[in-house]
């Protein structure tokens, strides 16, 4: 029984690290907050892509919807949104939010973002999740880009010029720390949710759909219902993370921040694959490694960082598709509780050290 204790200690150490991180690395608040958002992106992508086998390129749709929903609520509770978004040109009113207004906006905005993103997933889910394989992948890619283009043409939310997130009141100090804890909490919540989900029949159903959807359906599983539910769960988490992202970036560009298919949209897939697709810890590890690599590229390869990232995508997908955990599982199967019958592999039999 010492394994669970060891695991508990491990979880506690990670949690403690997460709580202490802003004080340990005061210069990297926003990068750390972004890291936890990436963990959410990768985990939710993996729930649908890795566990259910529906590889989506368009999960940015939910991030973007969440970003805008949260920002519109944060502003709309106190001011007229149309005036606010048009104030970048001409009229130079400065929109001030005091501490209570800002916190209320955030407290209302994030749940609204979750609900709206979830609803979008339900509305599109039943139509889009009927497709398989590459049709699904490209259709979701199209959805993400289409949403970004519509946002870039919609004047009410600032059109192509984007929309600033509400100014943070000075009395709150550094809001990034607050956002960090929100992102951290969200990542922990997402992890716990997915971990719990995968141990239920629902998790088994997801894997059944991935392995053979027709058989799963023939066995009587309500596949469409299961697929839409899983997608909506991912969307709710992504919606909240979008709300946090918008406040973290301080400015919502429709194509570079909210519906950033070329960055977050591909990165989340890459993070899940880098860590190990279809595993629980893989996306977390992948997101961490990716965020570190990304920041290193940004620091040392300035100007070429995006080229380097593109190269990295190709290299990882082509040469390392099993991911870090997949590789570890091949190398050290004992760590994962797999018993190997050595007599069949042709190697000399080795007694497990009990």
């Amino acid at each position, binding site marked *: 029984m010492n394994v669970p204790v060891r695991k508990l200690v491990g979880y506690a150490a990670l949690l403690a690290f997460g709580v202490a991180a802003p004080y340990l690395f005061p210069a990297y608040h926003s990068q750390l907050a972004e890291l936890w958002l990436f963990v959410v992106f990768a985990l939710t992508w993996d729930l649908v892509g890795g566990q259910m086998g529906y590889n989506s390129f368009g999960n940015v749709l939910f991030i973007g919807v969440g970003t805008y929903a949260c920002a519109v609520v944060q502003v709309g509770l106190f001011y007229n949104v149309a005036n606010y978004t048009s104030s970048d040109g001409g009229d130079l009113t400065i929109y001030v939010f005091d501490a209570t207004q800002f916190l209320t906006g955030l407290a209302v905005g994030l749940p609204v973002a979750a609900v709206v993103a979830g609803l979008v997933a339900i509305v599109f889910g039943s139509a889009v999740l009927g497709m398989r394989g590459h049709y699904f992948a490209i259709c979701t890619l*199209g959805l993400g880009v289409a949403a970004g*283009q519509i946002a870039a043409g919609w004047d009410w939310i600032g059109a192509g010029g984007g929309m600033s997130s509400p100014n943070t009141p000075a009395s709150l100090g550094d809001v990034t720390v607050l956002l960090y804890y929100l992102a951290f909490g969200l990542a922990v919540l997402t992890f716990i949710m997915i971990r719990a989900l995968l141990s239920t029949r629902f998790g088994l159903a997801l894997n059944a759909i991935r392995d053979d959807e027709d058989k799963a359906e023939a066995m009587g599983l309500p596949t469409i219902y299961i697929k839409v539910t899983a997608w909506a769960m991912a969307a709710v988490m992504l919606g909240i993370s979008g709300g946090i992202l918008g406040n973290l970036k301080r400015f919502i560009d429709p194509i570079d921040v909210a519906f950033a298919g070329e960055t977050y949209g591909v990165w989340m*897939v890459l993070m899940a694959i880098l860590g190990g697709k279809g595993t629980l810890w893989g996306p977390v590890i992948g997101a961490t490694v990716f965020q570190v690599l990304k920041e290193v590229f940004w620091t040392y390869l300035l100007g070429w960082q995006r080229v380097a990232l593109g190269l990295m*995508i190709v290299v990882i*997908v082509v040469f390392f598709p099993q991911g870090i955990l997949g590789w570890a599982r091949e190398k050290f199967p004992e760590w994962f509780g797999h018993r190997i019958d050595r007599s069949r592999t042709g190697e000399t039999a080795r007694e497990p050290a009990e």
Partner: protein
Amino acid sequence: MLLFQAPVISADLIINGLLIGAIFALAAYGMALVWGVMNIINIAQGEFVMLGGYVAMILFWNGIHPLFSVAVAPFVLFFVGWALYKLVVFRVVDRDLFVSLLATFGLSILMQQLMNTVFTGNIQTAQSGLGTIQLGSISILSIKVVAFFFTIILGGCLVVFMRKSRLGQAIRATSQNARAARVLGVDTDKVYAVTFGLNAAICGAAGAMVAMAYSIHPYIGLPYTIRAFMIVVVAGLGNIAGVVLAGLGLGAAENVASFVLGTEFQLAFTFCLLVVVLVWRNTRLAAKRQYLK
């Protein structure tokens, strides 16, 4: 409503749309080729178009008339495609479709960022200086008409090449049954390399024409990929007449839509159309499955 009140404008829109639609059809033909032969959906399709455009721009900047690029760009792009196959794509040919999709997506990001770093993100046009043609009350840039005819000639050559030449027959044999082709002595690896290079060359020619008749920048790739994909989905693999018709139709529809909705929504229209087309296809397939039950 406005369109019917002004027939001249709508004829103008449709003709301009048909002219660019031919270029869409060319890129779609290349995508169908790779899809059919190698079972890869090449997301970097639009990036080949973009690279072809930059070949035209380089000629133009060096004082050579960009019309020559219609001959030069395919050659350059053929080697780009060949090299990409030899470096990356051959490793994903037999793998899961998602792996090849993601790998070509990575290639597309790599190419667009490379071009963005080298040539900046500005919108460029290779001026051909051919003036305009007056057709009744409609005036059209003559380079667009020239590009249209080039596209048709190129498409015709391709069809003849695929039907008559030895290599074209090998490509078609591989697409029908790679294993049988291998048994009969076709070097399928070489066929794949040529197919990928040929596809890049086709897109390169299309891109050169886009750079002359329209404009290019490093990020035009994805819309071209999506259009090509949409055209192939609507037409079906191996249906050349369908590809041409769908391409022309898409060009016209996009042009009319961008006039009615405003240019800022043109891309939104294209991508929404993709979603609609795929959902429509899926509903029809589902209905067919119900019927079979």
